[in-house]
């Protein structure tokens, strides 16, 4: 089999990326996700849909985001040239809005008037609430009560935008429970409600359509680096929770076999402690939230709570395409502890004058060793997928600073 012709042709007709993905949902939802898939196929072929996306991307979101040469970080590590893809400069401060815009436009095509979403760090919730405000749609955001507590600024932003926040205390009150609760809402309100999933996971077609909407990151970055450097990078890097920013960066490079694709998972207190969020490095295949993928779970198939200092990476699963890319060897997946991410957060802030979110700080923590291994002729892109304003309170707390 000539793999070069196959990397970007997944998922198959059953929503599979190799053995991963699929549609593991209750029967109530099957007609809905089949309808969504059919509508997405039509929208993809519709020039008017693309034109509306492009217009809002340019004038509302602020795309294309810049590709920035991180000169001082490059000097610091004394290795490959490091570029940042500046998706933290998007409206609302993260890559999440790329996907929300696409999904809400789809919802409008389908005549849905109520949008529900789950959120961990609150970035997806804020982005969804923003687009709903823009289009005058009802917005309900499910958020684990632990996250409501640690992401107060985003909770308030969502409320300002007119969204209803539902704190989720069932289960363990984290992102996975927020997703369960959103699914419960969806099976209850099938007629008027559209579920806007925030990451490239869930039942087919979500992993595919979220990836497609986020692929704008990689498409722009690929064209920008060719223009700036006249060649493709040796490596592209991104942090991974569910993996939407990473798959958005990776996907347009899948066929470029010389480009290493490197994802960085959250190792929390360390993978060996069991308190982490590294599904690929510390989990095994299973079925949750509509897809088969790598999961943190017990020997008896019960889901284990993830831990990460970054609420956006604090999820026990990962998008199915990453599971596939890992098993097939096309992408590499490293990990980074809370401590290392905190150090990288400060390093980037001081050297580049960019306060990164804790999520991309995980990728920044691993960028040095990759840059050094590539050497001074090397070239790499790191996705700066979110800005750190939302994290200053938790960082202060972690550093023992009383604000």
């Amino acid at each position, binding site marked *: 089999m000539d793999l070069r012709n196959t990397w970007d042709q997944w998922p198959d007709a059953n929503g599979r990326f190799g053995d991963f993905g699929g549609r593991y949902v*209750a*029967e*109530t939802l*099957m007609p809905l996700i089949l309808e969504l898939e059919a509508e997405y196929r039509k929208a993809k072929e519709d020039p008017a849909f693309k034109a509306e996306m492009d217009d809002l991307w340019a004038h509302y979101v602020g795309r294309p985001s810049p590709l920035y040469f991180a000169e001082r970080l490059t000097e610091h590590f004394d290795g490959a040239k490091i570029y940042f893809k500046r998706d933290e400069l998007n409206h609302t401060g993260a890559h999440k809005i790329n996907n929300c815009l696409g999904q809400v436009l789809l919802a409008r095509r389908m005549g849905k008037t109520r949008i529900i979403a789950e959120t961990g760090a609150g970035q997806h919730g804020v982005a969804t609430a923003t687009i709903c405000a823009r289009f005058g749609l009802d917005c309900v955001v499910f958020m684990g009560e632990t996250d409501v507590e640690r992401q107060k600024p985003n909770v308030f932003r969502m409320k300002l935008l007119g969204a209803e926040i539902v704190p989720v205390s069932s289960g363990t009150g984290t992102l996975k429970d927020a997703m369960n609760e959103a699914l*419960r809402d969806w099976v209850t309100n099938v007629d008027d409600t559209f579920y806007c999933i925030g990451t490239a996971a869930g039942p087919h077609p979500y992993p595919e359509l979220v990836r497609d909407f986020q692929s704008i990151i990689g498409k722009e970055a690929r064209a920008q680096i060719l223009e700036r450097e006249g060649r493709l990078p040796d490596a592209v890097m991104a942090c991974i929770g569910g993996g939407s920013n990473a798959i958005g960066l990776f996907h347009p490079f899948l066929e470029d076999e010389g480009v290493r694709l490197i994802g960085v998972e959250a190792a929390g207190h360390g993978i060996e402690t069991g308190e982490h969020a590294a599904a690929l490095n510390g989990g095994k295949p299973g*079925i949750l939230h509509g897809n088969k993928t790598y*999961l943190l779970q017990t020997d008896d198939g019960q889901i284990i709570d993830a831990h990460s200092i970054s609420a956006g990476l604090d999820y026990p699963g990962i998008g199915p395409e990453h599971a596939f890319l890992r098993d097939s060897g096309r992408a590499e997946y490293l990990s980074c502890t809370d401590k290392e991410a905190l150090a990288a957060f400060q390093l980037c802030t001081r050297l580049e004058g960019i306060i990164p979110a804790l999520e991309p700080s995980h990728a920044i923590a691993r960028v040095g060793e990759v840059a050094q291994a590539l050497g001074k002729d090397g070239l790499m892109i790191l996705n700066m997928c979110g800005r750190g304003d939302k994290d200053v309170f938790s960082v202060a707390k972690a550093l023992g600073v009383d604000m």
Partner: protein
Amino acid sequence: MPTSRITDTFARASGESRAVLVSYLMAGDPDLETSYAAMCALRDNGADIIELGAPFTDPMADGASIQKAGLRALANKTTLADTLALAARFRAEDQTTPVIIMGYANPVFCMRYAEFAKAAHAAGVDGTILVDLPPEEDGELREAYAQYDLSVIRLATPTTHENRMKKVAEGASGFLYFVAVTGVTGAGSADPQAIAGNIEMAKRVSGLPVCVGFGVKTGAQAAEMAKIADGVVVGSAFVEHAEKAHESGDFASAPRGMGALAKELSSAIRTITKP
């Protein structure tokens, strides 16, 4: 043969011109010993089929009652193997009452389908309802079940239109579980008139007996559902007795309460004469 336990049950009820009562309880809630006593009490008070819930951390189709029941069972360290052992203990004394395992795909997937099928058969289990394993995704499971005659019991809902029903019926056996409301378990009750047509269609397309569940709590509701379906499933209302037992510490109250409810429900169902 396991499938025939289910078939025999519907045939027997049909001979008595009545619908069957399917009762649900969560294995290991409030503990395994009490679950065993509850299974016996349900059977002794007119439950025709027992659905044994296998606990899962993330029950996305369940309402608060069954979610909490699962977490209590997991806090007691109830495993899938324990749930099967409970079924086996019941089967050792009762060779006629069908036992269905109801739960989510991951624990079964984690045990591996083939190994689970073998163990379930050995435990005298008659079939499974795995909520998040729709027809598109249960091929491997059906293969594993084939040599043991275990039933794959599927869910149909008010959103299941006729074309979709054909897909749902394909490869399903035992009976069809019709979810009366679009929603989670224990949620508001359905209007029997609103779903009567869907149930007729489900019977016609599947050729299987159709049981209705979700939101049925009282004898009066059960009787209404018995008019339109071959069986009535009650879950959350039983599970609430386990919750009370857990809270009071009087575990014996669970089988007592469940037995009394089963008696109320089965008497109500028997007031409806089926053609």
